[in-house]
């Protein structure tokens, strides 16, 4: 097992450097530099442009800029935003809890509903419910997030008035950020009704962000369950006279969960990618919106290090999933 972990850890190093190189190169491949973008249609005096580029350290050759960047990372310094002059790390810490809160809510929605729908569809294979779940999940998987979000806002928020249109909490409340998680901060604030209001604000964004993972999890659970339910040990369990619930949940679902858990891990990346659009639609102040605006402004330090931090997170989650998977399945950890 230790050599398995060491092999996986060894893979992390080139992955990390690959990500730094990619983010460094990609943002610089987009035409326009931060000074040009900052000035827009206004005149940019070439001398002023050169001075600004020098101040920002962007006049050096690319390899020197990359080496500076790696040196900075080695010192644990993620640099400052070119736009706001705030440290990238502090901006990330300010915004990341909002994204995590949204992603966890979406995962909870997708996981719980997806598992139930998948299990029931597998048990009622070929029924109207099964076809319905598969059809809806296919539609959910193909749904453009932006359109879906606006549709839900128009129906539930504007039409029925059940949910707020956007934001994390009603602006009546002035909640000081303590943890950055609005649900927790609203509780800590002690303001009456703030927690429920924050919860209401989470409903639609979580549904929108969770729609694609929900579809994936439901389909994966159904197919894994169908496979497991055909296994000999399930037939044996039934033959032993165990209750149907025990057969399904203890002998069936527990074994079917292994591939589903892998999908859960992979969905973390998908959720962070989906958060970019969901955060824009719902004016949710998370890292997705932050990165999009930073790309527009060619804010190199934010783009490079923001993506790096997210990539590290995804790598870490996948590493943990790999280890857990190895723990659960000996065949995996002995593969060379």
């Amino acid at each position, binding site marked *: 097992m230790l050599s398995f972990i060491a092999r996986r850890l060894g893979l992390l190093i080139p992955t990390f450097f690959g990500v730094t190189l990619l983010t460094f190169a990609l943002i610089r491949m*987009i*035409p*326009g*530099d931060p000074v*040009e*973008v*900052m*000035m*827009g*249609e*206004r*005149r*940019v*005096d*070439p001398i*002023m442009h050169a001075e*600004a580029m020098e*101040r*920002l350290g962007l006049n050096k050759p690319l390899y020197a800029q990359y080496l500076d960047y790696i040196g900075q990372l080695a010192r644990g310094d993620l640099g400052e935003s*070119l*736009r*706001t*002059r705030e440290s990238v790390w502090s*901006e990330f810490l*300010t*915004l990341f809890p909002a994204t995590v809160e949204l992603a966890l809510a979406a995962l909870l929605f997708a996981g719980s509903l997806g598992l139930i729908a998948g299990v029931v569809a597998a048990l009622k294979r070929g029924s109207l419910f099964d076809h319905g779940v598969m059809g809806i999940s296919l539609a959910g998987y193909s749904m453009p997030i932006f359109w879906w979000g*606006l549709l839900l*806002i128009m129906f539930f*928020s*504007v039409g029925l*008035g*059940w*949910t*707020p*249109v*956007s*934001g994390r909490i*009603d*602006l*009546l*409340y*002035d909640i000081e*950020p303590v943890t950055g998680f609005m649900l927790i901060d609203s509780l800590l604030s002690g*303001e*009456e*009704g703030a927690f*429920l*209001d924050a*919860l*209401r604000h989470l*409903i639609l964004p979580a549904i929108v962000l969770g729609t694609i993972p929900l579809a994936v999890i439901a389909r994966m659970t159904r197919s894994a369950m169908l496979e497991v339910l055909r296994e000999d040990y399930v037939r044996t369990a039934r033959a032993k006279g165990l209750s149907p619930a025990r057969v399904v949940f203890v002998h069936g679902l527990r074994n079917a969960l292994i591939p589903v858990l892998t999908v859960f891990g992979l969905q973390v990346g998908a959720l962070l990618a989906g958060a970019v659009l969901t955060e*824009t639609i*719902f*004016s949710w*102040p*998370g890292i997705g919106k*932050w990165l999009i*605006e930073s790309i527009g*402004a*060619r804010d190199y330090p934010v783009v490079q290090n923001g993506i790096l931090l997210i990539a590290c997170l995804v790598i870490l989650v996948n590493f943990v999933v790999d280890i857990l998977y190895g723990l659960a399945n000996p065949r995996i950890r002995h593969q060379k």
Partner: protein
Amino acid sequence: MSNALRPFLRLLLCGALAAASQVYAAGARLVVCSEASPEGFDIVQYTAATTADATAETVFERLVGFAPGSTALIPALAERWQVSADGLSYTFHLRQGVKFHRTAWFTPSRELNADDVLWSFQRQLDPQHPWHQLSVRGFPYAEAMAIAQLIERIDKLGEHRVRFVLKHPEAPFLANLAMGFASIYSAEYAGQLLAQGKSEQLNRLPVGTGPLVFERYAKDAQVRFRGNPEHWAGAPALERLIFAITPEPNVRQQRLKAGDCQIALYPRPVDIPTLKADPALRVLELDSLLVAYIGINTRHPPLDDVRVRQALNLAFDKSAYIRAQYGPGGASPAVAPYPPTLWGHDPALSGWPHDLARARQLLAEAGHADGFELAIWTRPGGGPTNPNPGIGAQMLQADLAAIGIRAEIRVFEWGELIKRAKNGEHDLVFMGWAGDNGDPDNFLTPNLSCAAAQSGENQAGWCHAEFDALIARARQLPDQAQRAALYRRALAIFHEQAPWIPLAHPKQFSALRRDVQGFVLSPMGSNNFSRVRREP
């Protein structure tokens, strides 16, 4: 869902709102759905209108200001001023008793005086000033306006008297001082920050003299201000102003309809009819200081031939373009580089008609009866001056094909487009310009002067000696009527020489709920909410 469950679910979902206590009296609170996050709060480092709305229009004030909804100048922190006969010296008498904001992070020990004015400008002008190098971004607005090349020196004549001495006469100088980059900061606050090694705080926790006091910024979510009870012009009616940052225009509209905010900035032109039809809402519209145009590169043959440029103007169906781009009533056709609402416009000036026969005739006279090939440059994403660049370029392409000109459309990302256009690589380029200070010079010199042709901002690369002399002379004259006469002559040359295809002056819109009173749109595109009140 069963009928029995439905009321329960509704109760659960709506319960929280009912339970929410009214923390502030709704009438004293204004929520504005704004379009983007401010880049920071040290306005002199930034150029975006959103940043100016959250700083220059709330926290800070300048020596002079623009009258609400107009380009007329009014006294602000300076209660009066004198201009010397040679136009080189401006003496400002500062208002007495102006208090800086008292906040959790700064307690002022004195009122506004000449030191604050000197600090605010010297910081941008003097490379030796301790705060000059602290701005890594530089001072883009002041640099773009070439302020350092204009101001010779600033003298403190007394506690409440300062004099600006210019290197050459510059009629728009007063109007320039009403712009965001000329905001007056507290020198005392800056001194404290520098002494404490907290210079970065100036960009995070601003202190000014304005009608609204900065409270808190939750990044990418909201900016909160409270009314300044000590403001020299009296406390504003608003107890709280909140910018709810909502980048998606459709969501801003839905939030307005749902009552989450009382004003939604920058609705899309296509949504205007729907918003107007809603009885709970009002739509404000104003001819803004915007111009959309196609720059014709006069350095690229055969576009150096005035007959060819006139033929392009005659071939393009501007009315169809405006209908398709801005919708009914969304813009007025442009015939000049600045809108007819600005002084110095010539009402007798009419645009080129849509006349294909005459366009073909002019092309034939220029020796291009069989047409020629050129490239139309545009950008991928839309903006206020060019909402749908793709459609616009295709319409131009089709109209040019009608007179035998074979045009290829090339789409460049905005930054790259500007860069290449400045290098003069284009033939035709879709561009726009937003006026900053309500002075015709603000449109003409940056876009059509010979100096701008050299530096590349004049995308037509057009340098006409007589036109250039007229606008240079007008820039130096103090008398507005004399200046206007010179501008009218310059506009006639512009029309005849056709270095642009002037397209449109888009209108500016804002949507608000009916209980909002006192909000007026500014032709400069800024949004000031300090005089707004809510009356049910």
